[in-house]
């Protein structure tokens, strides 16, 4: 954000973006569920150039114990970038950005996960960004929802996320790295698709009220599309397992 655009054109004369997408197109998304053996639930997500792995552990005993809540499970969320996920090596360990993202992502899931079913326990969500290409917090939260489902944690809904931004003066969906670096705004958002409730919401950049609302509605539509893909991925996974089960019976 902030106009460090050294004369780079992000839209061509036909209004196409640098990877050929139209303004309102998502990047290709691939979801795999149940990919790790040690975690209670897991999901792997490719979203454009992003590669994201999410794992869920729990419900399990709370450590340290004094953090336990007698009314509900404690939710932990850790967003972490691998050192090799970006061009310049990222120093290992949490930085301020990761800590903030972890906080607002945990907030977004807090009332979706039925924590009241598991008092005095904790549910840990770990997301590793293996390759980063803008929009990682949305990809991470989307993958985390699938991992929670895979872990069999009861949820009120399946959280889906997407971002919108502004490039070369136009509002556009789902920015990639170069668009994010040289673009004019970023608005990541996560929703509960059943209700349309907004669970995670941030914006930075310079936007008029009109552009702001256009971004908001565009990101909402994007998140809904992502939600459909999540449902399909879960259904496919479920179908295969069910078929497998039927095979056994035959």
């Amino acid at each position, binding site marked *: *954000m*902030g*106009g*460090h655009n050294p004369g780079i054109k992000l839209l061509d004369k036909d209004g196409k973006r640098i990877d050929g997408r139209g303004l309102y197109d998502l990047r290709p998304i691939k979801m795999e569920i149940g990919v790790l053996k040690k975690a209670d639930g897991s999901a792997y997500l490719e979203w454009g150039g992003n590669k994201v792995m999410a794992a869920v552990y729990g419900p399990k005993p709370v450590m340290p114990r004094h953090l336990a809540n007698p009314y509900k499970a404690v939710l932990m969320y850790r967003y972490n970038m691998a050192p090799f996920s970006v061009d310049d090596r990222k120093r290992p360990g949490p930085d*301020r*950005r990761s*800590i*903030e993202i*972890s*906080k*607002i992502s945990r*907030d*977004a899931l*807090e*009332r979706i996960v039925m924590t009241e079913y598991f008092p005095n326990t904790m549910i840990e969500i770990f997301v590793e960004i293996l390759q980063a290409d803008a929009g990682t917090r949305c990809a991470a939260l989307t993958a985390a929802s699938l991992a929670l489902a895979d872990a069999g944690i009861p949820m009120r809904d399946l959280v889906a996320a997407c971002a919108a931004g502004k490039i070369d003066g136009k509002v556009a969906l789902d920015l990639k790295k170069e668009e994010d670096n040289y673009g004019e705004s970023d*608005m990541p958002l996560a929703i*509960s698709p059943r*209700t*349309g*409730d*907004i*669970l*995670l*919401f*941030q*914006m*930075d*950049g*310079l*936007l*008029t*009220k009109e552009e*702001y*609302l256009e971004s*908001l*509605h565009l990101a*909402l539509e994007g998140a809904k599309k992502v939600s459909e893909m999540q449902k399909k991925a879960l259904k496919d996974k479920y179908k295969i397992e069910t078929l497998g089960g039927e095979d056994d019976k035959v």
Partner: protein
Amino acid sequence: MTKFEDEMLWNIKSDYVHRLAQQGLRVDERGQFDYRPIEIIPDYVTRPAGSAMVRMGNTTVIAGVTMDVGTPFPDTPDEGILITNAELVPLASPNFEPGPPDEDSIEFARVVDRGIREGQVIDLNKLSIEPGEKAWMVFIDLHVLDYDGNLFDAGALAAMTALNVAKVPKYEDEKIIREEVSMNMPIKRQVVETTFAKIDDFLVVDPVLDEEKSADARLTIATTDDGYICASQKGGPGPIKVDEIEQMIDLAFEKGDYLRKIMKDAIKK
């Protein structure tokens, strides 16, 4: 008070806040969209290049702007550097603890920082000394003295006031001469932040601590004096609706102009 008593007391308070909200009322009898009384003291401390104390009701924040010289970032070789830091020192609240910044103070610093950075408040090009080699570093340090809710608005206001009154010292022969001024801080835009709390379906501006802790969700919107929104941040476990965001944008511009006027008056004195 034990931790258990503390939690009991807190549940009672939270119930009270919610019951009032259902009747459209607030704990301190304020109007739904009224700020608490605001006091701004520019140049509150004089060691740094600029400073301000802001009192918003019982919330007190000091911002100090310190100038140093460093190496510009490789991708912006001809620009100064902005760094924002916040300390929730344990003096300010029974719930703040000594130690390195926790997620709350990091979020606080980053939300204030984003308003100022994305709003392009400082003309960073004017803070270049020698492109690629040397540039001014602007440190904004937020120090909370008394914490009764809504740090974001009070902190952003303190930071903006401190920037408005800050002077850039002289730099000669590889040395900073703090006693002499080379120019005023180059300010391009006036940015303030307005924070809403949502308690059940009741939206209020400038929540006090009891409201903030009871709230389902929080939304902060940073506005500029030339009609832009330059940052937003939702917090809290509860949801917000699209139409609520639309309503809060209009209010944020209105309240933003109010805050900017108070700040301008305080600086003029």
